[in-house]
């Protein structure tokens, strides 16, 4: 059964350490004890995994209240992690017996533990160290020779396994089985010889392998990228948000001497629970890439000449003013990246709309560059996604359409897997190739590459005979029938739409067909999954040729009036050019100045050749980016920008959750945060006070954009806030 949305839990009366309290029935005793602050040491228990009671560390004494008020005690201690609370439960977590038991269990665990804490990467933040410190024996009575097993065995390029340190809690094995689902780790042998391993010591290829490092309560599984780079007390930890995709995983960035040495997951039950994918955890190292830009540079012949920021601004504004005087309205265009923060994107559109009087701004590099407001929001009431993570668990059926979920949206994949495993949510998948979602999908539709539109049309036709039949052959009539009947039977279907839809040659018709499908299904919800960390923010902030921040149309005079009053300049009323139109205008010479802020069309545009030709044809290309990308080679002026780790701001993830990230390290050289570059340009052109920090920009956004009204930094807090 899918998880019911709102259930009033039944409360039961229990007593822990003499303190009476009411908890929901069935809550595990270990969680109930946290409510009164009673500390129960644990190794194998993990909040997001099934309890197994393997390590015996959480033993407590329990009893039940009898009708006459007396307490009947259980003769033996019980594991708190496997004990659901029931009416009249009485527990003691600090009794003399329990203190003795804990000491004995720790002494046993330490017999086979090498105690090489000084060289162990877990030392200083190790649950085994901490529990021994608080509950363990002061000295060891074990004088025999310790066992010896392979140390630092490389399981993959990310994970090293030290078998001597393993205490057999099974967290890693359970993670690969329950959460990531690939079951690549298992316990081999038994008894004293038991060890967690991959099959025949082959590579640990899971896409979520980094999580086992974090959940290992000892240093048995350690990171190879972080190996020996720092100790916990050398590290400065800062809260952040992952910049690799639109899932918006909450992270901690750990830096030492200005270098990010490690990335860990930060718990957010509404988003990533406590997981990360390997891309976010290990591959997010571009802030220390050797091709970082550290200084503004202009092109002199074939060479780069370093110049000061003041000269760079002068040069840029001179070229823009020239273009505005000589050319027509189309002479300036700008494309912003989808990894910029909301604040930067907002200032970006403000600068170009108000200061440079152009609507030629966009951020999309996909084939679909239409008007989301008209195509989707006007029909469904939301522009991209009508759901949040939690909704996946309570849906009867989730239809994954055109997305290799594990690659594109790893955290949605994990949550969908959880929904299927724990709540029996049915899954329907349509993808041209083999995808891991098929393993647990009720029906899989493999359509020929590019056959998305035919598939949706075929489904629509099956759902209602009035819809005209699809012209070409659909992939497999039998499974289409099965899929259609599954869709028709489950009210409240969620349709997750992936990258294939955005890049379909007839993207707009496909999108309209999908909207039609969502409308046709009873209570159907559509979620258009976005490619990058702040793609949603770029839409919300109006980095679009035809929409102002908050999806108001630029030709709507009342909406414009609000912004005009705030900016005290008139705004252009005619919709501008979208990305493709900008590139074509570059080719005809209409666009003379092209400003690219944190965007890499030469690599990311669906048609790189078009982007390359446009950039070579354009008179003056300004590239503002953190890295010397392929696109930067076409620039006439380079402005070094900061990455998310070096500046403050917010990202909006695919479910429209606005989340803050904080500055973790100093920017290299003269690099400046994107918002600051736009603010300084604003100051130079408008002679108006620019905003001084991202907090202030967000205040302005919350005043002007109704959906962001609640998104000031004070309201956002650590866990973010989803706008409705």
């Amino acid at each position: 059964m899918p998880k019911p949305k709102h259930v009033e839990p039944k409360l039961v009366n229990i007593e822990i350490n003499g303190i009476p309290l009411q908890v929901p029935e069935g809550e595990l005793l270990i969680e109930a004890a946290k409510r009164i602050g009673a500390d129960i040491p644990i190794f194998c228990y993990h909040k997001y995994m099934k309890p197994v009671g393997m390590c015996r560390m959480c033993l407590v004494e329990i009893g039940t209240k009898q009708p006459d008020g007396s307490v009947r005690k259980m003769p033996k201690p019980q594991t708190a992690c496997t004990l659901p609370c029931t009416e009249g439960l009485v527990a003691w977590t600090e009794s003399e017996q329990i203190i003795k038991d804990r000491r004995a269990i720790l002494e046993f665990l330490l017999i086979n533990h090498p105690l090489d804490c000084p060289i162990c990467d877990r030392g200083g933040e190790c649950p085994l160290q901490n529990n021994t410190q608080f509950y363990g024996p002061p000295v060891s009575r074990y004088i025999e020779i310790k066992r010896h097993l392979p140390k630092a065995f490389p399981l993959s390029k990310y994970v090293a396994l030290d078998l001597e340190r393993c205490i057999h809690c099974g967290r890693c094995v359970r993670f690969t089985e329950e959460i990531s689902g690939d079951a690549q780790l298992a316990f081999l042998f038994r008894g004293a010889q038991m060890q967690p391993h991959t099959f025949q010591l082959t590579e640990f290829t899971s896409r979520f392998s980094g999580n086992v490092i974090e959940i290992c309560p000892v240093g048995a599984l350690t990171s190879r990228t972080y190996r020996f780079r720092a100790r916990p007390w050398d590290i400065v930890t800062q809260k952040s948000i992952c910049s690799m995709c639109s899932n918006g995983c909450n992270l901690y960035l750990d830096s030492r001497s200005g270098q990010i040495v490690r990335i860990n997951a930060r718990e957010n039950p509404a988003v990533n629970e406590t997981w990360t994918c390997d891309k976010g955890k290990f591959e997010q190292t571009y802030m220390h890439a050797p091709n970082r830009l550290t200084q503004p540079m202009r092109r002199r012949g074939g060479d780069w000449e370093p110049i000061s920021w003041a000269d760079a601004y002068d040069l840029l504004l001179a070229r823009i003013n020239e273009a505005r005087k000589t050319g027509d309205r189309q002479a300036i265009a700008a494309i912003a990246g989808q990894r910029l923060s909301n604040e930067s994107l907002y200032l970006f559109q403000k600068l170009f709309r108000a200061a440079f009087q152009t609507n030629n701004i966009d951020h999309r590099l996909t084939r679909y560059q239409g008007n989301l407001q008209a195509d989707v929001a006007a029909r469904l009431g939301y522009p991209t996604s009508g759901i949040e993570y939690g909704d996946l668990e309570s849906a009867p059926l989730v239809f994954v359409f055109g997305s290799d979920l594990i690659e594109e949206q790893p955290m949605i994949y994990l949550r969908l897997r959880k929904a299927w495993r724990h709540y029996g949510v049915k899954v329907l998948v349509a993808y041209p190739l083999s995808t891991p979602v098929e393993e647990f999908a009720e029906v899989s539709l493999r359509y020929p590459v590019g056959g998305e539109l035919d598939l949706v049309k075929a489904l629509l036709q099956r759902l209602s005979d009035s819809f005209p039949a699809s012209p070409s052959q659909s992939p497999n009539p039998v499974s289409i029938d099965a899929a259609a009947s599954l869709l028709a039977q489950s009210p409240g279907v969620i349709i997750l739409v992936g990258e294939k839809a955005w890049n379909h040659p007839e993207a707009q018709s496909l999108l309209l067909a999908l909207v039609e499908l969502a409308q046709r299904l009873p209570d159907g919800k559509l979620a258009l999954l976005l490619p990058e960390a702040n793609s949603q923010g770029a839409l919300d902030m109006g980095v679009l040729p035809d929409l102002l921040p908050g999806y108001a149309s630029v030709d709507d005079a009342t909406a414009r009036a609000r912004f005009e009053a705030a900016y005290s300049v008139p705004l252009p009323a005619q919709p501008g050019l979208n990305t493709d139109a900008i590139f074509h205008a570059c080719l005809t010479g209409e666009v003379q100045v092209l400003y690219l802020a944190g965007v890499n069309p030469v690599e990311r545009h669906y048609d790189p050749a078009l982007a390359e030709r446009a950039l070579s044809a354009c008179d003056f290309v300004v590239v503002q980016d953190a890295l010397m990308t392929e696109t930067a080679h076409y620039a006439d002026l380079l402005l070094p920008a900061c990455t998310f780790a070096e500046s403050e701001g917010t990202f909006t993830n695919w479910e429209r959750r606005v989340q803050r990230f904080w500055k973790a390290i100093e920017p290299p050289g003269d690099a400046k945060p994107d918002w600051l570059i736009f603010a300084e340009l604003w100051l130079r052109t408008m002679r108006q006070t620019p905003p001084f920090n991202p907090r202030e920009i967000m205040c302005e956004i919350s005043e002007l954009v109704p959906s962001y009204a609640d998104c000031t930094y004070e309201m956002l807090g650590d866990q973010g806030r989803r706008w409705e």
Partner: protein
Amino acid sequence: MNGQAIRLTVRPRPPRPEELTLRFSERAIKELETILRHYPDRKSAMLPALWIAQREYGGYLPPEAIAEVAYRLGRSYAEVEGVATFYTMYNKQPVGKYMLEVCTNLSCMLCGAYRILEYLQQKLGIQLGETTPDGLFTLTEVECLNNCGDAPVMQVGDIYCRQLTPEKIDAILEQLRNGDEHTVLQLAEVEVQLHLSEQERASL
């Protein structure tokens, strides 16, 4: 494992399903399919499937056998390997034609199991866990065989040899050398047949 090793070693990738060489015979596949019908979940048939694999792969489970079982049951390789290494009656190394498994638990030990072991080692010229050069006998030590009344006990394939004496051992070895009964493969066959009903056996 030293530092050099960790920097240079790249583990081989686990085999992809299409890279596996499948060796189950027609009959084995039929048996597995029949057994799978007994359970709601394919995972439940793992133990009989491993017995079939042990029979098909010549009395032991090489990594390829484990991979094949995993493939046929739709489970991960590591999971099947974990089960196969947990149970001692699945052989992970090649063994001889016959397995001589001598119990050395308490009752047998008191009745002279170690004398029997020593005699066997001497007679066959091998140590515990080794196989004779002619590939006939593998000698191992096992825990209680649940036959303490007849101690000392030895298991050979699908039978128990009870109340052992050196003379009895001589006779047993002679009988095994000359016959073709109670082999390792036969034990696997018996174990597989145990999982099939009378009717199913007839229909196969």
